[in-house]
């Protein structure tokens, strides 16, 4: 784990998300998928966003580029990136930022490349659009990027179609596509989940290496504590559309405060633990995440929380700072309450 000293009160972080609310208006009612989320990313830093499926982490990351598909609706909040609020920019301005200043890699390499266009045309098109490069220059740059992400014989690959490549290769192409214009922030939504275990390690190594070489910041969305342990400088833990806890990676793993973070860490198998004797069984979190269509009042985690009190069932906790660079939303850790929405 790298240890870059980061202060939580960075004067001007690269990315600052404030009070983001994204709701899904369905026929059955409003689903509060993201319900008041804050986080920051400093230049060159990697933020891991961790949570179960349905915690709102993927919707949050898509919303940074205003890509969350309907019926998702951004209800409130700001996404400050390099000094401008992306949520209020024109579509034209946003298109200039997408792919050039902030780029994205996707979970499933099998579906995130267009099946009927060649690798070359998919890559050069983006370069030509953003930089106005000539066809020849764009092809050279695309081949250069493919080589950078570890694809052999890059010039020949440009002529190939996605179905001719393996899953790991496709993901490398997806990464190359994101890096074409050297963005300052890379969004990675579960970049290894759909891959074989051995390929997963390769892709993570590649991402770690590229991040260092290109000096870009990264938002890594995942459900896998192992992945964030390896990659992230700071970690934000999300549950049911809200942030539970944010701290640097070392603190999250060594001194977690929120009961959910603790439960999450306990359910990860560890080689330095012996699961013999009284602790033979890997603990799991009892119960299921709440149905966000009928979100319970109070803390979203209360019905699965071992420490929940009567107050937790009524009052929604607000984020508060427990130590420098470490925020927690839990009434039992001294968070102030928030009146019901």
């Amino acid at each position: 784990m790298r240890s870059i000293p980061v202060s939580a009160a960075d004067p001007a972080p690269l990315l600052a998300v404030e009070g983001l609310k994204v709701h899904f208006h369905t026929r059955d009612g409003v689903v509060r998928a993201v319900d008041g989320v804050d986080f920051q990313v400093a230049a060159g830093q990697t933020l891991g966003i961790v949570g179960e499926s349905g915690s709102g982490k993927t919707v949050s990351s898509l919303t940074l580029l205003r890509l969350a598909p309907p019926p998702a609706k951004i209800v409130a909040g700001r996404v400050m990136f390099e000094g401008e609020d992306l949520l209020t920019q024109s579509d034209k301005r946003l298109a200039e930022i997408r792919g050039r200043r902030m780029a994205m890699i996707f979970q499933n390499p099998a579906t995130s490349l267009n099946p009927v266009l060649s690798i070359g045309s998919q890559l050069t098109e983006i370069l030509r659009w953003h930089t106005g490069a000539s066809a020849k220059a764009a092809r050279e740059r695309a081949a250069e990027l493919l080589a950078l992400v570890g694809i052999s014989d890059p010039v020949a690959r440009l002529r190939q179609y996605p179905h001719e490549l393996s899953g790991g290769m496709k993901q490398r192409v997806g990464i190359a596509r994101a890096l074409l214009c050297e963005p300052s922030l890379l969004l990675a939504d579960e970049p290894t989940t759909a891959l074989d275990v051995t390929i997963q390690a390769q892709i993570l190594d590649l991402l770690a290496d590229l991040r260092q070489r290109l000096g870009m910041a990264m938002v890594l969305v995942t459900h896998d504590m192992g992945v964030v342990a390896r990659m992230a400088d700071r970690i934000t833990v999300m549950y049911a559309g809200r942030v539970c806890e944010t701290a640097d990676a070392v603190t999250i793993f060594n001194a977690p405060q929120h009961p959910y973070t603790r439960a999450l860490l306990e359910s990860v198998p560890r080689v330095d633990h012996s699961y013999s004797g009284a602790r033979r069984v890997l603990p799991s979190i009892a119960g299921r995440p709440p149905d966000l269509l009928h979100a319970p009042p109070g803390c979203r985690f209360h019905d699965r929380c071992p420490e929940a009190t009567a107050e937790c069932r009524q009052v929604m906790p607000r984020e508060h700072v427990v130590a420098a660079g470490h925020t927690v939303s839990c009434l039992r850790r001294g968070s102030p309450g928030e009146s019901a929405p």
Partner: protein
Amino acid sequence: MGALRFLLRRLAFSAVLILGVSFILFALINAIGNPIEIMLAETPGVSVEMIAALSKFYGLDGSFIDRYGAWLWAILHFDFGTSIIYNQPVADMLEVWGLETLKIQLPAIVLSTFIATAAGVVAAMKQHGWADFGIVSSAMLGHSLPGFLVGILLILIFSYWLGVLPSYGAYSTRNMFMDSVVLDGLWHMVLPVGMLTVFNTATLTLLIRSSLVDVLRQDYITAAWASGLPARRVVLHHALRNAFIPQLTYLGTLFGLMLGTAPVTETVFTWPGLGALYISAIQQLDYPVIMGETMVITVMLVAATLLTDIAYVVIDPRIRLA
């Protein structure tokens, strides 16, 4: 290589199909008995010898298999025999009337492809908006409005009430439009082509829209947006190509449907095409025309299916190299 074998297999199956149709058709016509006898049954003064001579002339003597073989051999050489009613070579008739049919059907299919694509794109991009609602509901209505009713309405409105377009035929017998044969021909094409276009466009629009809505939800489209490509590029280049592939099959089906219902279209507009020829042939039992035309239509349908297969191979790289 895979693609070539795929096409060869389709070709072989097509040949078997055509052979099958030809056999069933021949057996069917054969089952009604000697058409000469039926046609002359009520004509007084026809001797048995005359019927025998006529039967020999039209190749109706001999065993079933002999006659089938001879007929098959002949049509392989584009010899469809002689029409009993018109006393002309059937091959020549099919060419003349067939061109008239294609003259209204091909423009209709091209026009409707363009219109449907444009409408489908607009609807899919503004999904659940007013434009979408308008396009989808009118397409839904058009999809259920039978083609020949559209034709009847068009004639009623543009020929009878407004009096601006001709209601029947492919050419004027006198007073040509603007004294030009070409313009007069085009003038007569407007309503039939209009009807076939309306008929084709509605269903095609619905298909393209729903396919495009589906494609626009795919990850690679989100990825295209995330790369900062402009809307035009994302929709027309990335999405439309994928959305259009499934419609190729339908274009083949559409062509078959138009050709198959040509008798109805051409009856509505009194159009001198294959459909009208077919109707008169079965009414008057002009069996060389019935058989020749059914074979020609079958071959055209099979060819259309083969063409869509080839188009797939050209447009979809997954098939090309699979």
